[in-house]
């Protein structure tokens, strides 16, 4: 039931773009995105509540496609501070579940 994220890991140069996908085998009604830096707690980035909704945070935005049961996180012109592990999260059958995670490393 755990949402599957892709890619599992990605390495970028500063200024490059990246897309992280979160796919579920179950219906999604809302999706949350978090970033966790090494040794720190996860930090909430954004929530998407409606199908097709897109939201933004700094140069990070996300979309939510209910039909495809997936959400995508877009990182534009990546910065060193974007490095970390990104998780999607969602409520499935009253259980809150995190995705498998995507490790992102931005190099100078």
């Amino acid at each position, binding site marked *: 039931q755990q949402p599957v994220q892709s890619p599992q890991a990605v390495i970028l140069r500063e200024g490059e773009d990246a897309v992280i996908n979160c796919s579920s085998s179950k219906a999604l009604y809302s999706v949350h995105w978090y970033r966790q830096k090494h040794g720190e*707690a996860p930090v909430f980035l954004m*929530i998407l*509540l409606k199908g097709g909704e897109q939201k933004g945070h700094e140069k990070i935005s996300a979309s939510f496609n209910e039909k495809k049961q997936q959400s995508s996180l877009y990182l534009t012109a990546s910065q060193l501070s974007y490095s970390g592990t990104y998780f999607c999260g969602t409520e499935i059958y009253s259980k*809150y579940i995190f995705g498998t995670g995507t490790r992102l490393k931005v190099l100078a």
Partner: protein
Amino acid sequence: DARVTQTPRHKVTEMGQEVTMRCQPILGHNTVFWYRQTMMQGLELLAYFRNRAPLDDSGMPKDRFSAEMPDATLATLKIQPSEPRDSAVYFCASGIYPGEAFFGQGTRLTVV
């Protein structure tokens, strides 16, 4: 600056001992989560409460783990007896459903 406060930050204990972790959620938040994070399993939801009522604790080993919210300002997670496989970072988070969740800094538990 509102934040979720967890105590203790670090705990080393011997197998078989009781461990109690505490969490002070952000005032006004009606949802509290307990998570466990390990390298092997990633982030796992152990339990969560809404308006102090337990909604789901299916992620917890029932024979040894218990989670409570004695009042709106305190959530506790107890392990009795603790085992080495319980070693992990335990996070508490609070939020206003279905909005964002704010995480505490975590309790790093080591059971030897």
